[in-house]
Structures are given as structure tokens and as C-alpha cells.
């Protein structure tokens, strides 16, 4: 059920588990843990719609290279930043979990294999297709070939597209119907009361913008407020920072103006367009194989093609939508629109075939984009600033730092990608050089036009490591130095790969739920 903290008569809330933040992680945790017939309190700062005064709490300072404004890249309402999520879903690559000797601070405390069962559940939560990200599977299923590289250092890597799932809309009714979930809206976490001797959290205080406070007690507490707000809460309450790690290792996925590809027109690139196979929207791109990364000692980059939606791709997508729906005994949404698209596309294709313009030497020019992994850097950080928000709490300062290693990795990845196109006679790439107007600046001198951009993926700021000297949370996402405080979300990522984080966030939430329901955990708390 939902409660409006501004209007409720409740003087206190008692629960088994208190979750702070109703974004993808918080909502996943609440619904999963509610299956155990325990009482869940889910605190959310906002309401069901974005509101200026609540959103204003997300304002902060950017003191390093430019990032999107902090109150634009994050949404503070029920459903969280899934409210403007693009929908890309893919698991982190296996090697991202491994200790890579050429990347300081790399390595997760568990392997990808351990997370696979949770990724499978996350696929359902995020409303995507089967948990299969093998390019050859989708290529075969859709009869859309991978690029015919020869003995290549590249691999085709793809993501699936969620509708996208707006967690606040999609799961609002489920939360409302769950009798053992009390979702408290307009409730901002303002204080964590800690028993320092026993290292336990006794209670947290939820406060409205109007100043009304409600204490919340629980056996276990989970902070799930996002990659910038998670460390903010710990810093404000001086928890978990005994080794000055909270807020450090802030990572984003790096985007830069990249390159152009000239590719022969006759090469089938449908798989690398936004396509649909068996009703699952996917998009493929290219990245370097793990053995190449090790040989080159670099981070990874994924290169995507900004292909025009050709008549062939439109026809394929509409046909796939109809075929999938009919196969399930349904009529697809926008059935008439799909039929219209198919007829028009077939006409365009036929026109193209009979205009005599089938010169195999024609090329198309394709802009390329890339998403790159950032190396964990303790100097890249989120910290408390001096400005206060409407609740009297210090806002954050974000100092996003990139290194020469990050830039070198991007450049070398693109050079290898370009060489592979040449080697396999599939085209030629043009890379923007640092001298071009829209090129790359040096890490400490970013030009306005050439700056790297983030992807609204805020990661690493309460990183996971079993040694408190190297991490804020342990492998179960429990804050070091506490017995019953946990963190959920991308702030726990020790490394980030190039993959959009939402699927991993939800998978880790499922994993945390499993941990919390274990008898040992319940005894300890």
C-alpha cells in the first residue's frame, strides 16, 4: 500500500526491512522480499509524478569535466531514473568481473557465473527476451548475418531493448496490492541512527519537505538511491567511510564523437541496426575480444552503427512484430501501422531493385558511436559540497576524472576496429583526431566541443570489495563496519564494462534479496 508521508498520522513505522529509494533496485527488492511474508517499508522521496521541489533536491555541483546537470540525469520520484531510461539491457561481460592486472582496482568478489541466475530473473523484470546474448544465436534466429570478418580481433556484441520498463508505472499496482509492503511517498532519508558499539543501524528518519519526521525501524536497511545519492547518504551520516572510500571511484560510460565508417552497400548490416528478432528488439555492435584486451592492456569499447532505417530493416521489424504476435495468438499493437509499413517498404525495395543502380562498388557512410569502459579512479569522486538543500543537508559535488589510460584505450580500440574492417575488406574508418574541432581533448583540458560525455550511468561510488581498505561494501553489499546496512544499485560496481547498468542493478537486487532471506543473515541482524 501507499502512504503519503505528508498526510499520514503514523508516528513511526516498524518493519522487517526498510528500503530507501523506489527505483529499479528498490522496487525489485521490495517485490522479491515481499514473497517471504515479511514487512517491507519502502521509502521514496518523491510522489508518482515529477515535482519541481522534490527534483530540486538532486541539484549539485559539477567541479570536474562537464557532466549533465545532476537534477537532469536523475529522477526523484516513484520509479526513479527508470522514468527516462532508454531501455538497453545486457549483462556485464565475463572478463569485467575478473581481476585484470593492467587495470588497478579491477575485479569483483564473485564471477559472472554467480550472477547469471539473477540476470535471468532480471530479464523478466525488465521485460526483455531470453537470457541469451550470443550473437550467433540471434543471427541464426533472425537470419541476419554477422559481419563477415576474417580471423578478427572483434566480436559482435548486442543488447536487448526493454520497452523501456518504467518501474514506477509498471510495478505500481504490484506494490499497492502487496499487503506487506508499505511504500511511503514524499519521505526523504535525513538521518541514520547507528549503534556504534554494536555496529547496527537502529532506525532511520524520514522527513518531508514540510519538516514532518517519521522514524522507521527495521532489522535490515537497504539504501537504493542511485550512484550519486547512495554515497551522499553515507557521507552525510558518516557511515562506511573509515577508509575514505565513500564517493570515490566514480565511473561513467564514456562517449566521444568518434568515427565514420565507409562500408560497401551490399554488406548486410541489418543485425547492427535496431532490429527485432522473435519479438525481441536488439541492436548489435562490435567490441574487442577479451584476449585482445589482455594483449593490448586496455579497457573495452563497444562501437555501434548509426544506420539509417532502410526499407529492408523496416520490413523485417514489422514482419517480426506480426509474426511474433500471431504466433502467440494475438494481434500486434499498431497492426495497421505495421501492415502499412510493410507495404511501403516492399515498394521501396522493389523500386531500388529495378532502378539499375546495383553497383557493388557503392558505399554507404555510417556514423559510428561508442560506449567505453572507464577505469576505476579514486580521484574521480562524489563528495559533499557546501551548498545546502531544502532539507538543510549538504548537496554533492561531482568531480568526474578521466585518465590518459581511458583515452588511450578508446583510441586503441577504435584503431583496432578500423584495422579489422580494412583487413576483412569491409570498409574504411575515419577517426576524429585530437586536432579536429570535434575531437578529443586531453584529460585535463577538455574543450567545450570535444568533451567526453557521460551516459547518465553513475557507478562505483560505494564499491564492492571484501577488504574494507579497498571497498565500501562487501560481496553481499553490506556496508563495512555495520551489521545490517546494505547498498543496492550501480554504486557497488567495482568496474563497469561498457554495458548499460540497469540489468545488472536489477540482478544484484535479486542477489541481495536472496542473501537477506538466508537464515544466517536474519540471525546476525
Amino acid at each position, binding site marked *: 500500500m501507499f502512504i503519503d508521508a505528508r498526510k499520514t498520522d503514523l508516528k513511526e513505522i516498524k518493519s522487517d526491512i526498510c528500503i530507501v529509494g523506489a527505483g529499479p533496485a528498490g522496487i525489485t527488492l521490495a517485490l522479491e522480499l515481499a514473497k517471504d511474508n515479511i514487512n517491507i517499508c519502502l521509502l521514496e522521496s518523491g510522489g508518482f509524478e515529477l515535482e519541481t521541489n522534490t527534483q530540486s533536491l538532486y541539484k549539485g555541483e559539477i567541479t570536474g569535466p562537464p557532466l549533465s546537470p545532476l537534477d537532469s540525469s536523475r529522477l526523484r520520484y516513484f520509479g526513479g531514473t527508470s522514468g527516462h531510461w532508454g531501455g538497453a539491457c545486457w549483462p556485464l561481460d565475463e572478463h569485467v568481473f575478473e581481476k585484470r592486472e593492467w587495470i588497478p582496482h579491477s575485479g569483483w568478489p564473485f564471477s559472472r557465473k554467480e550472477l547469471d541466475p539473477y540476470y535471468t530473473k532480471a530479464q523478466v523484470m525488465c521485460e526483455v527476451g531470453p537470457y541469451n546474448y550470443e550473437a550467433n544465436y540471434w543471427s541464426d534466429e533472425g537470419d541476419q548475418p554477422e559481419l563477415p570478418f576474417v580471423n578478427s580481433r572483434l566480436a559482435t556484441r548486442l543488447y536487448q531493448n526493454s520497452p523501456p520498463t518504467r518501474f514506477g508505472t509498471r510495478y505500481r499496482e504490484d506494490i499497492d496490492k502487496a499487503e506487506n509492503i508499505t511504500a511511503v511517498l514524499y519521505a526523504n532519508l535525513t538521518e541514520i541512527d547507528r549503534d556504534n558499539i554494536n555496529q547496527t543501524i537502529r532506525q532511520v528518519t524520514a522527513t518531508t519537505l514540510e519538516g514532518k519526521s517519521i522514524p522507521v525501524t527495521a532489522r535490515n536497511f537497504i539504501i537504493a538511491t542511485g550512484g550519486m545519492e547512495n554515497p551522499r547518504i553515507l557521507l552525510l551520516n558518516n557511515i562506511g567511510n573509515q577508509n575514505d572510500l565513500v564517493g570515490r571511484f566514480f565511473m561513467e560510460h564514456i562517449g566521444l564523437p568518434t*568515427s565514420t565508417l*565507409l562500408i560497401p552497400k551490399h554488406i548486410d548490416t541489418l543485425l547492427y541496426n535496431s532490429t527485432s528478432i522473435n519479438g525481441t528488439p536488439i541492436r548489435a555492435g562490435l567490441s574487442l575480444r577479451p584476449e585482445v584486451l589482455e594483449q593490448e592492456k586496455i579497457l573495452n569499447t563497444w562501437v555501434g552503427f548509426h544506420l539509417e532505417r532502410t526499407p529492408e530493416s523496416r520490413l523485417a521489424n514489422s514482419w517480426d512484430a506480426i509474426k511474433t504476435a500471431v504466433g502467440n495468438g494475438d494481434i500486434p499493437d499498431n497492426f495497421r501501422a505495421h501492415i502499412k509499413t510493410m507495404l511501403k517498404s516492399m515498394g521501396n525495395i522493389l523500386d531500388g531493385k529495378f532502378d539499375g543502380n546495383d*553497383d557493388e*562498388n*557503392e*558505399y554507404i557512410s555510417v556514423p559510428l558511436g561508442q560506449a567505453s569502459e572507464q577505469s576505476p579512479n579514486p580521484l574521480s569522486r562524489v563528495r559533499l559540497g557546501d551548498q545546502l538543500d531544502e532539507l538543510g543537508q549538504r548537496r554533492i559535488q561531482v568531480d568526474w576524472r578521466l585518465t590518459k589510460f581511458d583515452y588511450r584505450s578508446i583510441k586503441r580500440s577504435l*584503431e583496432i576496429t*578500423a*584495422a*579489422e574492417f*580494412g*583487413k576483412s*575488406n569491409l*570498409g*574504411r*574508418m*575515419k*577517426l*576524429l*583526431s585530437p586536432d*579536429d574541432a570535434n575531437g578529443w581533448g586531453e584529460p585535463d583540458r577538455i574543450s567545450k566541443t570535444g568533451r567526453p560525455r557521460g551516459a547518465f550511468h553513475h557507478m562505483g561510488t560505494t564499491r564492492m570489495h571484501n577488504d574494507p581498505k579497498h571497498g565500501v561494501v562487501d560481496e553481499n553489499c553490506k556496508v563495512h563496519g555495520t551489521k545490517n546496512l546494505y547498498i543496492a544499485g550501480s554504486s557497488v560496481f567495482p568496474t563497469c564494462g561498457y554495458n548499460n547498468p540497469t540489468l545488472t542493478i536489477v540482478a544484484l537486487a535479486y542477489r541481495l534479496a536472496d542473501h537477506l532471506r538466508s537464515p544466517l543473515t536474519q540471525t546476525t541482524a
Partner: protein
Amino acid sequence: MFIKTTDKSRRRILKYTVCGFFLGIFGLPTMRHTNDPNILAANPDALSLLPDSMREIGKEYLNSYPEERSRKVLVNSIQSRLNVMKNLTNEPSWADMKELITDDFQTDQVVYVKGWVLSRTEARLAALYIV
């Protein structure tokens, strides 16, 4: 073995340039649908219709590698690579040239010219137009 830098040998190497992949990319309005090397080789004046991009790449390559600013050096460089790769004793075919270009990419013999990631052989062929 070095080939003489006669007009005939230069023309043959240039012929491969014109009908090759590299020029296929930048295109020639008058030659887009002509891939017959014999036609092109018989009309060397047509080379003057090359788009500026080809000349620019050649120019930039030579700015980066001024020691190759010589027809003889460029042709000999290409020929010596071919000899090493294929131990040729006769003049190269277009297939040989294509193989050399592929080998350039495989062996990291790539150059960056105006942002383009090219086979060194391709860049040398472009340079031949302006020396």
C-alpha cells in the same frame, strides 16, 4: 627486385589504385561505373579528374612521411613489400595488390591520414598522384 620507375610501371600501379577499393570509396563521378583496368590504363589523362580527397590524402601522407616524397621511392616501397610478401618475379596483378593491402592491415602497417585508417600501401598509392 626493383622495378624501373617508368611511366609504364607507374601507370600499372596507378591503374590498380584507380580500380581498387580505395578509390572506389572516394569515387569518381566519371568513373564510378567503370572498373575495367584496361580502359583506365589507356586513359591516364582521366586521372586528372580524381577528386580532391584523393590528392589531399596523398599530400597529407607525404607531409607525414617526407622521406617518401619521390615517385621512385614510393613505387619501390610498394614493390619491395610485394616481393617480401609474395616473392614476385613478374609484375604484380591486381589480386596481388589487394593481398598486399590486406596484409598491411594484418601486420599493423596502417597509417592515419586525415583521420582515415588506411593501409600504408593505399596511402602510398594516393601519394603517387601528387609526386
